[in-house]
């Protein structure tokens, strides 16, 4: 009689559902997973080491490239760590802008997650719907920073510049006629804030669309209910954060528990799941999109009323105004020192964490007083979540592994760093 062996299959790194470069070695008994062994490191770029050889401010764009679907939140944690080392106060308007863009980023990330998750489970249409809305969010990024994805907008001490007064518009092209152009530009007539305001009005309707396609769909429920169940105790023990933890029923959210920026002034709810399965995590994230939309709305209303500086006036950290630099000796020196040496951060260590869309994203920075960090340690949520993949997928089928990878909301930029 032949010996019966398990079927070992290499899932990825070149696999449509591997979300990047996940190499998953699956040991199968028929279609049932006996063991799932994630191999990481295929996208390792040594961000932490690179940061040691760059000035503090030069590493901000690296943070965009960690979790490349929630860019500004990564920058936020990094800038917050520097601000803690410096003991720096951020102007209130900058805090509001950061809060608003953190939430825009959260919607962006969750749209990407929802699209990819449903595409993995086979619902192609949701994917394209989500990308339609993401396009508007990218336009907001572009309007404020000039870049659609890797914004590099946050700075230690505030943000790079104030929100633009005019929303960029589509230009005439031979493929667009007059009416189309007018239609495309109809919500871009005013400022960026008007555009964001218009988006917050439209967005709940879009979320309803996605929910119509998925939430009560029998197939969607069959594919997600009871899949990848994590008990609250295990979720805590495994170090879960963010929606993964809230999906298991633990109301832990850094925006509430350790409020940073102006989250303590915001009205929002923290959705939590009951069963800790993929479906609950889906519901949690969808509700988070609605709550983020609420926060964005509140920020827009405040930002309309309250003009002011958006970056600290400590010119050892933030560059002075150009006119002042041209006319004033002291500002000229500041400018020169800042653009040749960069920021000097007093010796010490600091940890700053934000509630990034995927969970707790933390930056642990050690400074020896030089213009470069002595050491940066990044704590990324997906890395922790991925390590639970084996536990979550044991006893499930191949198709469920895909659902579980989707529900973990993995991005390899931040796992491999």
């Amino acid at each position, binding site marked *: 009689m032949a010996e019966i062996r398990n*079927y070992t*299959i*290499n899932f990825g790194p070149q*696999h*449509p*559902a591997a979300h990047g470069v996940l190499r998953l070695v699956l040991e199968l008994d028929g*279609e049932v997973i006996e063991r799932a062994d994630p191999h990481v490191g295929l996208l390792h770029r040594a961000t932490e080491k690179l940061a040691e050889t760059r000035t503090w401010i030069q590493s901000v764009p690296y943070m965009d490239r960690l979790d490349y679907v929630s860019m500004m939140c990564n920058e936020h944690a990094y800038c917050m760590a520097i601000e803690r080392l410096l003991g720096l106060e951020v102007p209130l308007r900058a805090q509001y802008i950061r809060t608003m863009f953190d939430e825009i980023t959260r919607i962006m990330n969750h749209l990407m997650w929802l699209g990819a998750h*449903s*595409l*993995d*489970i*086979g*619902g*192609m*249409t949701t994917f*394209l*719907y989500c990308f*339609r809305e993401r396009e508007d969010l990218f336009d907001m990024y572009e309007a404020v920073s000039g870049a659609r994805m890797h914004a590099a907008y946050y700075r230690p001490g505030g943000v790079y510049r104030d929100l633009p007064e005019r929303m960029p518009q589509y230009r005439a092209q031979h493929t667009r006629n007059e009416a189309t152009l007018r239609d495309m530009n109809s919500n871009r007539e005013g400022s960026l804030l008007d555009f964001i305001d218009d988006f917050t009005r439209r967005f709940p309707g879009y979320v309803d669309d996605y929910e119509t*396609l*998925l939430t009560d*769909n029998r*197939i*969607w429920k*069959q*594919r997600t209910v009871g899949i990848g169940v994590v008990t609250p105790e295990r979720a805590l023990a495994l170090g879960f954060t963010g929606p993964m933890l809230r999906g298991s029923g633990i109301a832990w959210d850094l925006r509430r528990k350790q409020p940073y920026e102006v989250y303590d002034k915001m009205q929002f709810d923290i959705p939590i799941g009951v069963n800790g399965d993929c479906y609950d995590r889906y519901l949690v994230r969808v509700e988070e999109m609605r709550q983020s939309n609420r926060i964005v709305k509140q920020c827009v209303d405040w930002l309309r009323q309250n003009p002011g500086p958006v970056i600290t006036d400590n010119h050892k950290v933030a560059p002075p105004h150009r006119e002042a630099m041209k006319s004033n000796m002291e500002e000229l020196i500041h400018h020169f020192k800042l653009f040749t040496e960069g920021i000097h951060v007093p010796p010490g260590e600091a940890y700053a964490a934000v509630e990034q869309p995927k969970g707790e994203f933390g930056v642990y920075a050690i400074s020896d007083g030089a213009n470069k960090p002595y050491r940066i340690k990044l704590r990324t949520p997906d890395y922790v979540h991925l390590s639970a993949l084996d536990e979550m997928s044991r006893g499930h*089928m*191949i*198709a*469920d592994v*895909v659902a579980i990878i989707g529900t973990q909301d993995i991005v390899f930029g931040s796992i491999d760093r």
Partner: protein
Amino acid sequence: MDAVTTFGQNLLGPVWLPVWTLVKIVCILVPLILGVAYLTFIERKVIGYMQVRIGPNRVGPAGLLQPFADVLKLLLKEVIVPTGANKYLFFIAPVLSIAPAVAAWAVIPFAPQAVLANVNAGLLYLLAMTSIGVYGVILAGWASNSKYAFLGALRSAAQIVSYEIAMGFALVGVLMAANSLNLTDIVRGQEGGILHWYAWPLLPLFVVYVVAGIAETNRHPFDVAEGESEIVAGFHVEYSGVAFAVFFLAEYMNMFLIAALAATMFMGGWSAPFPFLNNVAGGLLGDGFLWLAIKLSFVIFIFLWVRATFPRYRYDQIMRLGWKVFIPVTLVWIVFIGAMMQTRFAWLFH
């Protein structure tokens, strides 16, 4: 038509019959293949519009030449045989999967007289032909020497075998209603307008048939055999170029076939939904070929619509649906109509 036949017989004698059959085969196949080519285009367009995009519009006017560009591309690509693959089986597999899909068209009546083979056991022939298709899939998965392909083949074999049963039972209902296995007779039994269609008395069977048809052709949401996000492309993951094109062609040909069968057996085939429309269409395009095409397109549109709307089932859920829902439903309904046919409501089911 008779004139052509007598002329041919005088000219060629006994050889005329095979020649005439070949001509008819070509007359069926060429529009069919063109139809398949444009089905791929229409699928992309329809799903495109459902997904707020516009689909292919670059090749030719409004993208109408896109199918030819695709065919050309696939023809020019290299066919790669993976190392360790069984070369003969590897190439036999696509042939085995397309041949039955084409052969089944022999018994489909396009109009009262327009059928290639008016055989009495037409329904049995169809069941036999459609079940051969699974061998192509199994062989492809086995011969590719790839784990993904093998998994896809296993899934597909199990799925097709299970849904064949539900489908077979659905056809038994038609057989009972029509008292015939001959497809032309089945259509004749439904003549006289939309109210005479078998779709109404056999509604559960009709629904089961269409859903099982989607499963049978490995279409979304039952496409676990090639489930893109799970086992990449399933049984044809190792195929490229023409060999892949043949699998692709077979899938769409099967879609057409299932749609044509649904139209023939449940929706009155070539006959018009309202009797007074029979001549209108007949005057336009053959003897009601137009109506068959319209009904067929309707079923195909449902296939596309379903694809754009639903997420994919998991493999074991498909099996559960097949065995625990569809087979019992069809069985119960067959017994029910069998019993009703003995009562004075029998006329309802004929």
